[in-house]
């Protein structure tokens, strides 16, 4: 057993007033055990539906789901002890205090983590007696992530966990997630933050229109699908025709405005060397290939 999650040919259709909508369309992916796995895709791509099927909240219309080699519908009790979901809902049980909420959640599991440890991880240690209804959006989000982690899950499903967090809280959350991944917890998170996916995830699957269009480490995807570095520079308009002609040896240059040109290339050193020899060229700027580039290449459209 190598994979925490195996999804094969998943289809999910919804009845809507305007007809049948396919949220998942033959989605296949495998999530290895341990590490942080990102489901990457724009809103409406099918990420949340995929996560809901994994935790058994929804049934797939077709296809198979295996969680730690078990059927989530048949072995639901075994899975619920080991798989947790970060609630996206902001105020479940609004009358509860933060400490009471964490304690209640921990009481549901056989081997929970210490409430104070999770509260400290999530920066909630000073808010234990505050009512959930009185928390700010970011505090509620941290509590929700804490609830997903308190049962010591083998697999934690986090649905856009850093939404609403400030930079410091997000960095703290990333540290905790890395720590848990090092301890062997499998963390699956959905995100539409490409930077988060690149920095945090060991592996990502790009979801688009209900399909997993690619899977691999962020660097692998960038190397495979993002077409080189984008170099942009200013050029004297009088010299522009000559520069463009010579640049075509390295790729197809694009004119951004009357004096700004960019070119995407894998041979960065040669282009830089070429441009450096030109006194009519100035203000170099390099954009490393990104997941965004890879996404556009994979899907043929912008991320958002």
């Amino acid at each position: 057993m190598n994979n925490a999650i195996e999804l094969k040919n998943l289809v999910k259709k919804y009845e809507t007033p305007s007809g049948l909508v396919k949220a998942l369309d033959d989605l296949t992916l495998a999530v290895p055990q341990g590490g942080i796995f990102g489901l990457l895709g724009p809103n409406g791509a099918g990420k949340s539906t995929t996560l809901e099927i994994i935790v058994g909240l929804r049934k797939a219309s077709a296809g198979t789901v295996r969680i730690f080699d078990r059927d989530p519908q048949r072995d639901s009790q075994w899975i619920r002890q080991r798989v947790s979901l970060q609630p996206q809902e902001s105020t479940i049980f609004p009358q509860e205090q933060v400490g009471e909420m964490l304690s209640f959640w921990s009481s549901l599991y056989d081997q929970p983590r210490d409430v104070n440890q999770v509260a400290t991880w999530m920066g909630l240690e000073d808010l234990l007696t505050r009512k959930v209804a009185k928390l700010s959006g970011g505090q509620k989000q941290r509590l929700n992530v804490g609830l997903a982690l308190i049962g010591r899950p083998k697999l934690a499903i986090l649905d856009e966990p850093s939404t609403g967090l400030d930079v410091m809280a997000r960095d703290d959350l990333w540290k905790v997630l890395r720590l848990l991944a090092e301890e062997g917890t499998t963390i699956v998170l959905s995100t539409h933050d490409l930077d988060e996916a690149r920095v945090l995830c060991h592996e990502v699957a790009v979801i688009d229109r209900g399909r997993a269009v690619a899977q691999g480490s962020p660097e692998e995807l960038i190397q495979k699908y993002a077409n080189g570095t984008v170099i942009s520079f200013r050029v004297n308009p009088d010299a522009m025709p000559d520069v463009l002609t010579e640049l075509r040896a390295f790729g197809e240059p694009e004119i951004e405005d009357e004096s700004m040109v960019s070119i995407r290339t894998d041979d960065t050193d040669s282009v830089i060397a070429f441009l450096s020899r030109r006194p009519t060229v100035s203000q170099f700027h390099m954009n490393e290939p990104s997941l965004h580039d890879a996404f556009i290449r994979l899907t043929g459209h912008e991320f958002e």
Partner: protein
Amino acid sequence: MIQHKHIGSLLALQVRELIRNTSYFIFVIIFPFIMAGMFLFLSHLMKGEPGSPDFSPFVLPMAIFLAVTGTALTITAGPLAELRQSGALRVLSTTPIRKSDFLVSYLLVRLIMATVQIIVIEGIAVFLDLLSLKETGSVFLVSLLGLSMFLALGYIIGGCLSSSQLATNLGTLVQLLSLFMSGLAIPFAILPDWLTNILKWIPSTLFGNLIFWASGKPQQQVGATISFCITLAVTVVLVFLAIRSFKWDVE
């Protein structure tokens, strides 16, 4: 049965959520006493007035009816719909807790609360000489039957509607309508016969009828046995419908 390891934390959660929702909780606690106090006051004022109705026989049945329906409808239906609306039920279904455990604990806390209310009301009624001590047992048992019937109804309302506001309003509407049609707030003696002949067969009226019977009041319209049988049958049907119609999640 509720899993033993969960019961303490589940019940504690349900109690906290119930009593901290002060606007509903306090209203449901004090409303029966306010209405009973008003009827006692009216009864006191009209005492000795020739031809005036005597409200004193209505004080105890009405207080029990309001306690039972307030708990079973107002603070059951709305908060249950709220749990679905907020996504709490949905999230809980991904935890090891069994759905039935959560719902049983939800109802158990309300059952205990209404039971305590009934006992307190009976105690005050005995103190005020509105009820004899030997009648307290039968009034209590009859109240539990009515509580079961209305709890099932509150569960149906909260189990189907996704808007807590709508569920609360509907629960309160059902409570007030059933109170006014039961003969507990408006004596049947002042209503036309044709209307009384219809209203006396409504299950909530039969429940009121049973309280009259159990407390030895002469206002009952239908025999105790038939009232009991119909109320029990309606309760069984409502419990069945409550279980079948409950929606855990919003699609």
